[in-house]
């Protein structure tokens, strides 16, 4: 299992440098942003708002360097296992992208359509992305969940989620 894990081969180790690059770039961004902070008129105390970000950015840059060194010396981050995780084979990007699409569509539709519908779309879309092909059953479960959670939040917790086009019906 371990030898076939992603990142096990030298070629795939290259993407680990991407992590180091990301950390380094983020560190630089934090530092630059801190340096560009305008002079504050209400600042109190000897430590300004830029000091800590510069230290944190520095930490990121240094860690990025050590990480690159570790990867060069053959170190690999071990992908996390879990109850339903099978680490043989590559990441299934199609599933991940479909999930992200369902997620984004909920974010875009929640205020217009309302949570009872957008939430149902989210659940149904995720179930579809994960390989469920019981379209009708999935839709029923999705609607029960989204309407149920809307009522639970509205009456149980006093939090009113968007009603959208169902205004006046719920």
């Amino acid at each position, binding site marked *: *299992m*371990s*030898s076939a894990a*992603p*990142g096990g081969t030298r070629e795939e180790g290259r993407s680990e440098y991407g*992590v180091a690059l990301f950390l380094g770039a983020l560190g630089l961004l934090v530092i630059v942003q*801190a340096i560009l*902070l*305008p002079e*504050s008129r209400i*600042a109190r*105390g*000897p*430590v*300004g*708002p830029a000091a*800590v*970000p510069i230290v*944190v950015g520095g*930490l990121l840059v*240094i*860690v990025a360097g*050590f*990480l690159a060194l*570790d990867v060069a010396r053959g*170190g*690999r*981050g*071990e*992908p*996390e*296992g*879990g*109850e*339903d*995780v*099978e*680490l043989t084979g590559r*990441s*299934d*990007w199609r599933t*991940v992208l479909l*999930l*992200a699409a*369902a*997620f984004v569509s909920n*974010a875009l539709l*929640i205020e217009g359509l309302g*949570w009872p519908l957008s*939430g149902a779309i*989210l*659940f149904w879309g*995720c179930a579809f*992305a*994960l390989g*469920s092909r019981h379209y009708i059953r*999935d839709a029923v479960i999705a609607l029960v969940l989204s309407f149920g959670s809307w009522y639970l*939040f509205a009456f149980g*917790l006093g*939090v009113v989620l968007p009603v959208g086009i169902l205004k006046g019906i719920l």
Partner: protein
Amino acid sequence: MDALTSLIEGFGTALTPQNLLYAFLGVLLGTAIGVLPGIGPAMTIALLLPLTRGLGVTSALIMFAGIYYGGMYGGSTTSILLNTPGESASVVTAIEGNKMAKAGRAAQALATAAIGSFVAGTIATALLALLAPTVADLAVEVSPADFFAIMLLAFIAVTSVLGSSRVRGLASLGLGLTIGLIGIDATSGQQRLTFGIPELADGIDVIVVAVGLFAVGEALWTAAHLRRKPVEVIPVGNPRMNRADWGRSWKPWLRGTAIGFPFGAIPAGGAEIPTFLSYVTEKRLSKHPEEFGKGAIEGVAGPEATNNASAAGGLVPMLTLGIPTTATAAIMLAAIQSYGIEPGPQLFSKEPELVWGLIASLFIGNTVLLVLNLPLAPLWARLLRIPRAYLYAGILFFSSLGAYAANANTFDLFLLLLIGGLGFMMRRYGLPVLPCIIGVILGPFAEEKLRQALQISNGDIGGLFEPISVVVYCIVALILLWPIVRRFLPRKAIPGVLEEAAHDIEEAHQHSGLTTAVSVERHVGVHPGDHPGDEARKKPDFGEPSGL
């Protein structure tokens, strides 16, 4: 006694019918969610956090205590009935527990876990009630400089956990600290890292970060590697133990409590080390060492008790100093903060009703857990068969619901996905999640203390070095330089039990493929060539000081 009176008052708060109902509901929901595969205690709490939004702070925390214990117990049920543990603290439980289950003793394994958790949880909560007020009294005297030093220690300790790569731990900490920086700086009013986005001015809601890292990140990561074949769930009857099982269990429970509580109370990063220590101890002391590896009940009883005791121990620094040492404690702290209550040494004097109500409800939650879980175990086992498509769709559904309900803002949903993507990347490249969440929550607090300390000393850097903080900095330096220090020590100087625990951790990692990058030094002459994957997985020990 003062603590006792306060505790009785706490029971007065917690035992109202309404609060009792919340405790009960918390345990039920916590166990039900925690038992679902792929959902650990931290994710359980993050997902259920929004449910407590409509409640008053005391009721919410009481419900939380129930969720906390329920989530932890649910996690061990999963690891006993399915071999693959969901989080590092239950790795050990899985070793013997699953062997017991396969040998037809699932009922006994679940019983010893439940009763052991109850015993350990009760004793450890009592210790918490006795110790915490004293610690809080002492902590009130602690100066900002010392506070900063202690937080630095917490940062370093969570990144340097035995058995994981520390450069990756530090990377995760740095990411968390960066997220914590986002927003308006309270002292100067400057916007940091907001890039002119108004939604970022108040910083990123900790709930969004926690749900993103733990729930969305985990769901996306699992979806990318979903096991397509159905998992094998071992059927289970009502948990029960015979006389021999009791005889073999009670000592491990007590020893586990003794190991777990102190480890939880010091900021040393999680339950992994103490549970392994407990396992190794039980293996050595057992009258049946030959059963270890084949399903020894001591190997379930000890680590499970340790796990619960260390969770209660972890509440000592959380309640007295406002410093969380585990992911679950970190999220609980975030929940307390979301009510506008500032955690720290003043919590005991300012909010006695809340603190003692919480401690009392830990006792109640623990008891409810036992009462509820012994008869309901077969039902929980059935939850393990939930179709995976619905499980992970449900996680994403409730994550979105919770993140949106927190601030009623669509922007948070996009942020949630972004942070979920970060969580995905961290899981892919072996960056541990714990240092990140600790960085998000403690980072702003540490900065505040640093600035206070330097304000008191008028900018003199020497103001950071007070007696307590110097000691703490020495410990920090020792942890950072340990791999170098260790080379100059004679081999015998390293405690044998720790060494063995480190070895066992590594073995378990190899079998389960769990958690973060492993870079514990290999032992000389241990099973040469036994594991074909060894060479590929061997990582250089990375111990250089990082210039901090």
